[in-house]
């Protein structure tokens, strides 16, 4: 190696590439973070079923990107919503594709969430210490379904309108909170302009923001706690007896503890 000296030109080139990365790393530590994320170890026997989570994330990104494009053309007002959907579908360049991807990406997103959840359940990956991440996942599922519900009204066609009428009335049957919830969703006594604007705002600001934040937390916990290996082998499933360490328990509340989890 030593005899193959790099040319001065090449050295300058490498320095030019590395310099901005170094600059960023020195000031933010982000490069180190990305390196940690990419080169962290995962169990050697992870398999294809464990790609369902990232597949769900991909579907969400598709929804986000196509959603942003649709928002450039869509008009959340009962007088023009339906026309703007027709305009997107028939006139806008590749508008039908963007709308089609958003429409069907929603189904794919929801299917993948359920499949991902089934995989986590069957692998027992919700067990200690990943309980919190399971709960975050359940919240993501619920918010994802709400995205489906609020997005369904936006085309303002007959199916959309009447499904939402019944859906809101179903919310209204809940004890105590129901009538308030229904009133809030409608933005009044009847479904009208306020309802549509409200659903649009919830659909494209509130819920996606919450989902993106929770996905961040979800991924942070995955990286922090590591990927579960499939439960096929006795060793991997960790079912044999384990002698707990003789020393006292570790935990945040114990004196002298460094952190909640053994590292």
């Amino acid at each position, binding site marked *: 190696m030593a005899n193959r000296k790099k040319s001065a030109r090449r050295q300058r080139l490498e320095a030019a590439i590395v310099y901005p990365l170094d600059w960023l790393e020195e000031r933010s530590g982000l490069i180190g973070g990305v390196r940690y994320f*990419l*080169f962290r*170890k*995962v*169990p*050697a026997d992870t398999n*294809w079923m*464990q790609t369902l989570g*990232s597949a769900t994330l*991909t579907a969400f990104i*598709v929804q986000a990107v196509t959603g942003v494009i649709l928002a450039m053309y869509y008009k959340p007002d*009962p007088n023009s919503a*339906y026309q703007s959907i027709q305009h997107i*579908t028939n006139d806008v360049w590749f508008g039908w*594709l963007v*709308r*089609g*991807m958003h429409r*069907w990406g929603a*189904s794919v997103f929801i299917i*993948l969430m359920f499949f991902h959840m089934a995989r986590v359940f*069957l692998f027992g*990956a*919700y*067990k*200690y*210490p990943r309980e919190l991440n399971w709960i975050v996942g*359940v919240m993501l599922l619920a918010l994802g*379904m709400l995205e489906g*519900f609020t997005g*369904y009204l936006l*085309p303002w*066609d*007959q*199916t*959309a*309108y*009447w*499904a939402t*009428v*019944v*859906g809101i009335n*179903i919310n*209204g*049957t*809940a004890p105590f909170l*129901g009538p308030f919830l229904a009133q809030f969703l409608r933005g009044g*006594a*009847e479904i009208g302009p306020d309802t549509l604007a409200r659903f649009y705002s919830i659909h494209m600001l509130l819920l996606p923001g919450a989902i993106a934040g929770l996905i961040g937390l979800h991924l942070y916990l995955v990286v922090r706690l*590591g*990927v579960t290996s499939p439960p096929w082998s006795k060793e991997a499933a*960790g*079912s044999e007896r*384990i*002698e*707990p360490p003789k020393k006292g328990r*570790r935990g945040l509340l114990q004196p002298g503890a460094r952190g909640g*989890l*053994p*590292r």
Partner: protein
Amino acid sequence: MSRALDERRAQFQRYKEDVKERGKPFYPYAMFHDTVMSLVVVSVIVGLAIVWKYTSMLGPLYAPKADPGTTNFVPRPDWYFYFLFYLLRIFKWPNSVILGTIGIPTILLMIMIALPFLDLRRERRLLRRPVAVVAAILTALSMGVLTYKGATAKESLASEVVSAVPTWAKREGFSGNPQAVAGAKLFAQSGCTACHTYLGTGSSNLGAPDLTAIGKGNQGAKFFSDYVANPRAFGNKVMPVFGNLGSAQNIRNIGVFLSVSKGPK
């Protein structure tokens, strides 16, 4: 309890050491799988969009514009809500409907959130977790069956229902009452049969009552007009508010139609 927790901690400690020693780096190994899978996902989504645009297999691009007044409506959620929607057919209005609308979904959500605290064993092998496996299979099966039933539940379109009006008039014996016949037509066109059944026509998808003999109690046309105009006033919070259905005459006709519907003669 504390011993179980110590065991779990020790096990996780060992998992960390195992992965450190024998694991493989996320990039490129796992990331390769993730990338392939993501490409498949995007391709499937694009494929569905293309099939939707160029064939009729996935349904129309849009239904007619929303019309709060009349015409045929088919209150159908997107397919992934069918399993919840079908619950409304099992738990009928009005006594147990709350179980189907709010009760069961809330209970399921609670169980899902509580799951990691209900199942505290370390065991992850499927064969040693019979309860979990059976629960998973039953959940998947019931969701599948409910979705299928929701998808195939019979619904009639207003255009088909309207053609049944003369038969209704004859069987219920109100052919000579023009107000009732007009009300029956309106009843058929306004999508009432999307939730209600009348002489076997319509859908009981949402658990709304059969109206074939609704007028038997002699409540009178005014009562029914008021009820349809604003079910809230009668404590019914599921049925949509219909107002006057376009005109004061319309809502009167509906009331007359329902009040003379005393079952087939």
